[in-house]
């Protein structure tokens, strides 16, 4: 079992969500995040005074998948989230020891 975490551009959320749903993913967690990578921050100007804002808004999307689906799901996310421009984000996977569905008590892959 793996946890896939994707940091994507906020306006790409709908595309990624639809692509994942079409692939057969039935659940995900989405949160607002902020950060920076190679894109860096942006500049704002108030009464002529420039402020560099390091952190830019992003969406953090998390999906639990069976180990066998990891590469395919990552490909789906990358394809849907890509614009080709700087700041498109990152996707990574990490191992998960156990999963429990709270309502039924199911464990492991049954709980995905």
């Amino acid at each position: 079992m793996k946890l896939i975490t994707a940091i994507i551009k906020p306006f790409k959320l709908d595309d990624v969500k639809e692509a994942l749903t079409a692939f057969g993913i039935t659940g995900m967690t989405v949160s607002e995040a902020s950060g920076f990578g190679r894109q860096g921050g942006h500049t704002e100007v108030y009464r002529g005074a420039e402020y560099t804002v390091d952190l830019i808004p992003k969406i953090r999307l998390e999906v639990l998948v069976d180990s066998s689906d990891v590469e395919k799901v990552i490909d789906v996310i990358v394809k849907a989230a890509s614009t080709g421009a700087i700041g498109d984000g990152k996707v990574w996977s990490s191992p998960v020891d156990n999963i429990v569905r709270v309502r039924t008590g199911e464990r492991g892959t049954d709980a995905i």
Partner: protein
Amino acid sequence: MEEVVINSGDTAWMLISTGLVTLMIPGLALFYGGMVRVKSVLNMMMMSFGALAIVFVLWIIVGFSVVFGDSLGGSGLVGDPTQFLFLNGLDNADAAIGTIPAAVFIAFQGIFAAITVALISGSIADRAKFGSWMVFAAIWATLVYFPVAHWVFAFDDFVAKTGGWIANDLGALDFAGGTAVHINAGAAGLALAIILGKRVGWRKEAMRPHSLPLVMLGAALLWFGWFGFNAGSAVGSNGTAGLALLNTIGATVAALLAWLLVEKIRDGHATSLGAASGVVAGLVAITPACAAVNASGALIIGALAGVLCSLSVGLKFKLGIDDSLDVVAVHLVGGIVGTVMIGVVGVDVGLFNGGGTEQLIKQIIGAGAVLGYSFIATLIIGYALDKTIGLRVSREIEVEGIDLKLHAESAYETYSSSRGGSSL
């Protein structure tokens, strides 16, 4: 006082104008409140509301008398504080001033005093003790605003026999308060910003306006209220009021455009904060001049104010003075532009409009006198208060947020602040 006939048209307009100028207090609170960070919105707004309350109480007790009582010793410096103590003889339905009830004139002028004090608060955002601010407001109104308003607004034989030196002896023109209100508040703001010092993190961390829609709304309410401020200063429902109102629009739109133009050329972006600031700069600059210039004069004054005020914002960074919300750039510079430009484009008196240099010199003396007195007196008052009761909050309070620490409130319910609480 001689027998006068109360004019119902004049009275109606002045009743409305008094309501309009009172709306400038929440307008200013929103304008300033939107510009500060989320942790000090309420404190910023409270400084305006607090100033209104303390100053108007003083106005009733002694303020009106100091401004409009007979000049002590005929000096033109300060009105007799005992003449209308507690509005003696004026707070009834029969007394008249000019062609309106005395009560209306007193209320209208009282709000001017309150607004002037409230304007100062923009230079000390995020870091002033609220109680000390209230004490400062009371002392400053008594020692600075009331005497200066006497100099400028007390005409001989209007309320009392002898009035102030700028209005009567010097003869500088200031229709609605370019000197007494804006130069006065701007110079005081500068002095107070010097005494309180820079905010923690100034020029290191981003101090962005937390809500520009509030700033825009505040500027719009100020503009609306300013029709009462300027056109109401005619103290009558007449052509002078009409001209003042027209010019209050003309100069303001010109300043808005000029400010945005400067931004577009200098920074590459026309901003909403620039538009709101341009509005206020234009309103400030036309305040003294709104009845002394024609419509093209108003456009010139507005455009000049928009350019000079927006360029002046950068001065605080060069001088290292944290005038947080640019009281100096907008009110001091704008007030000087409007006051001095009367001597340049004023109808029949301006250098380029039928007059010589005579009026121009009078205008400069008037502006300089108010600037100098206000700056020095505020430095002394501020220094004395800082050494006794203290003007500035502790570093801990400032960093964690003055709203929460001083007022025990937060401006907005956020997810993190609304969870985990319990009502006792």
